[in-house]
């Protein structure tokens, strides 16, 4: 087998001196509520999103807690909610978690914050559009919250008519309108990121030297741009039918409710790739940094993100195999779904190969990332059961599906979000958090997650339907197991809320590059100044040159945080110390 190495390792430049902590950085260059609410600084907007997202994650989490507690009892005797309340709770959980948390998550927080920095720009292409996207998001979110407070919706996040258009007695229209509005925020963010990456890369930052995080966000933005408008028009048509009393999905006048499903899933399937691909970008960044190696197969990983984005638009009807589509449609969509599974598999293998012969440490970002790798793999392969026609006709709409998508969305994306948060926290806030508690929370979340969702695969195989507060007694023991796991998971989520907040006040001040990473964002002080870079950076090499110890500007890297300095990566030997980069040997594998 031929393993490619590029040119000979060039002689490395000395590592940069630690930049002096600037007196004025983006957090303290202006004070007051209006300096935040009217900011056009992409970093502040990223933090605005962070606060909102944390709030809505909590709301969605509380809804999940209600659902799982209710599921401890298999009939009305053991319930804490009426069936109607339960239906509203799981709908709220789905809508809030998907539209208000998962879809914006990494693009709106880390994408906004770091895309310009990673490509050496001062801001995104359209800063005012960026701020507007947050306001649009908040407007839609407020409308959704309001509709939840006045009773909520009980249609499930999938909103299928005729139930949602004609039969549900809940506040469907305001809720759907809220979702509709947040969709525009998603489009704005995607547009901004795509134009930024096209037009604002600094000299030397070719497409082939872009960090994989940027490739991933580019692919995500492509989906956001082209997919979201389709669900927008679908929701408009749904609202028109509900408000007007007649519409194009109404069988009474010749309409077809299955048409809604086609239009809905045409967006909602690519939407799940909006949710996971940014996480994959984060994994590439963290794995390379914490194993001190180049990514294995940069081009494959980059193009697989694009492949997922494109092929992801061709598979929507795999949600509809039993919904009334034709036999040949089912055959076609199952085949296409098999194709879309391949790029994800390629990524997992490339990531695993990246670890090979690395030098691995296990701080919180890495633990979250490793947890992602395990849980995403399980989630991904369980998707194959649903892609396969012969098994989907049994597993469709059972807890098997619920377990599958929670594995990829929570075990995958939420863990990636946690990883990203922990990785970039020192850069965003200038503080380090507790190494011990962050590692502990990663382990607790991983264990809690497993216990919550593995029993649900069993339930699904045995046929327990989704969205069912009442179920047969023989399913109860697995439901209890699942709820027990959920309580551990909930505790695990609480921990970062505590120690990350505490770090803002009591955390050690972070250096510019505490993880010794190669990206351009780490070549700025922590926290960065308003315009990121003192002078325009010039990129001279690719993004993951850990093996030869250069960052993208061609300078050396500081000592990576290693075992022994567990709690204090900010302090390290200088470059000439025993493990300094000046003393490193570079080994080239033939």
């Amino acid at each position, binding site marked *: 087998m031929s393993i490619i190495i590029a040119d000979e390792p060039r002689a490395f430049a000395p590592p940069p001196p630690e930049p002096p902590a600037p007196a004025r950085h983006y957090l303290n260059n202006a004070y007051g509520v209006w300096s935040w609410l009217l900011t056009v600084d992409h970093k502040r907007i990223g933090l605005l999103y962070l606060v909102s997202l944390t709030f809505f994650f909590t709301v969605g989490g509380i809804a999940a807690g209600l659902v799982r507690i209710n599921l401890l009892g298999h009939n009305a005797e053991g319930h804490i909610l009426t069936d109607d309340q339960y239906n509203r709770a799981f709908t709220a959980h789905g809508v809030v978690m998907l539209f208000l948390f998962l879809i914006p998550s990494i693009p709106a927080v880390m994408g906004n914050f770091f895309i310009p920095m990673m490509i050496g*720009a*001062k*801001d*995104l*292409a*359209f*800063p005012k*559009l960026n701020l507007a996207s947050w306001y649009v998001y908040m407007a839609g979110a407020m409308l959704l919250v309001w509709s939840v407070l006045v009773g909520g919706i009980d249609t499930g996040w999938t909103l299928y008519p005729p139930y949602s258009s004609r039969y549900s007695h809940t506040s469907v229209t305001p809720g759907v309108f809220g979702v509709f509005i947040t969709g525009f925020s998603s*489009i704005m963010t995607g*547009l*901004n990121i*795509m*134009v*930024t990456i*096209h*037009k*604002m890369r600094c000299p030397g930052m070719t497409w082939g030297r872009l960090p994989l995080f940027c490739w991933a966000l580019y692919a995500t933005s492509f989906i956001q*741009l*082209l*997919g*979201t*408008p*389709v669900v*927008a*028009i*679908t929701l*408009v*048509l749904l609202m*028109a*039918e509900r408000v*007007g*009393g*007649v*519409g*194009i999905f109404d069988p*009474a*006048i*010749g*309409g*077809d409710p299955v*048409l809604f499903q086609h*239009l809905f899933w*045409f967006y909602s399937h690519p939407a799940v790739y909006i949710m996971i691909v940014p996480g994959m970008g984060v994994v590439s960044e963290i794995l390379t940094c914490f194993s001190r190696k180049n990514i294995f197969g940069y081009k494959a990983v980059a193009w697989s993100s694009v492949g997922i984005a494109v092929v992801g638009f061709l598979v929507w009807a795999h949600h509809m195999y039993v919904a009334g589509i034709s036999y040949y449609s089912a055959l076609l969509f199952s085949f296409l779904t098999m194709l879309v599974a391949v790029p994800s598999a390629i990524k997992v293998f490339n990531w695993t190969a990246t670890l090979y012969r690395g030098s691995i440490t296990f701080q919180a970002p890495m633990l979250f990332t490793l947890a992602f790798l395990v849980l995403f793999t399980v989630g991904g392969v369980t998707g194959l059961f649903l892609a396969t026609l012969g098994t989907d006709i049994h597993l469709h709409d059972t807890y098997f599906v619920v377990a599958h998508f929670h594995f990829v969305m929570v075990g995958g994306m939420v863990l990636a979000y946690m990883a990203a948060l922990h990785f970039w926290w020192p850069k965003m806030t200038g503080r380090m958090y507790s190494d011990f508690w962050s590692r502990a929370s990663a382990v607790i979340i991983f264990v809690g997650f497993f216990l919550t969702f593995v029993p649900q695969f069993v339930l699904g195989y045995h046929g327990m339907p989704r969205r069912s507060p009442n179920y047969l007694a023989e399913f109860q023991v697995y439901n209890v197991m699942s709820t027990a796991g959920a309580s551990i998971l909930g505790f695990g989520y609480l921990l970062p809320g505590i120690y990350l907040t505490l770090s803002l006040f009591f955390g050690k001040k972070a250096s510019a590059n505490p993880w010794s990473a190669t990206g351009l964002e780490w070549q700025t002080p922590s926290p960065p100044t308003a*315009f990121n870079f003192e002078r*325009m950076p010039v990129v001279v090499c690719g993004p993951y040159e850990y093996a030869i110890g250069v960052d993208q500007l061609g300078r050396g890297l500081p000592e990576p945080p290693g075992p022994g300095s567990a709690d204090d990566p900010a302090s390290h030997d200088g470059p000439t110390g025993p493990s300094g980069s000046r003393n490193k040997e570079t080994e080239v594998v033939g």
Partner: protein
Amino acid sequence: MSASTHSPVLKHHFDNLEQQHSAERLGMWMFLATEVMFFSGVFVAYAVYRYFFPGEFQFASSQLVLWVAALNTAFLITSSLTMTLAIRSAQLGDRPALLRNLLLTALLGTAFMGFKAYEYATDIGEKFVPGAMFRQELAEAEGPLAGMSHEQAARYEFPDHHHPAPWAQALAKTNAGKQPGDAGYLSPGRVELFLCFYYTMTGIHGVHIVVGIGCILWLVQQAVAGKIPRENYSTVEVVSLYWHLVDMIWLFLMPLLYLAGAGLARH
């Protein structure tokens, strides 16, 4: 990137004007892509039902007010011309011409909306609206024809040519003496389905026209404030891209909705 050589229109986060204009143009093209996807959802839905229910859709289309649609098409195409001329005026730095062309575009857009409002008023006045109004009007037309054979009904003259509405008279006569499933029977529900599309598609398009007019008026304000010098003509170009797209969408929408029943007699 020193401050002293900044053009006043250069935004702080761009390195030079070329990058800025290039980014703005790309951004607008991407936005147009989202608009195309937005409309494509309802266009695809329309196409599906048009394929399944050709008779009803042709009939319903033939009952719309065609002359307004034709006039509106002329307005919009002309407005695209004036918009393009506005770009030229901006490139030449000719402020009076720029303002003139922008205002003409806005005026033509407003004329479009005005005639659209008239068209809607006509349709609503005739109860040609899906739902209870439609069914009631149709029931009134079917009343006198109950029990008649198809030929008898064809010869029947309603005492008032306008009440019930002409479309209801035509539909009732078409279906007189026929049962669902007979050749030539037009299911009223499916006619309503067409109307759902008609109002939704033209309504959403109208919203886009209004937004476009708003953007043009903003451009007028910017031009008056002197913020569109020769170097910054691309602002006009970017808005014009949007306006042209809205025009293009109409050029697809209009034949689909208004010319589907081209071969049929109109009232």
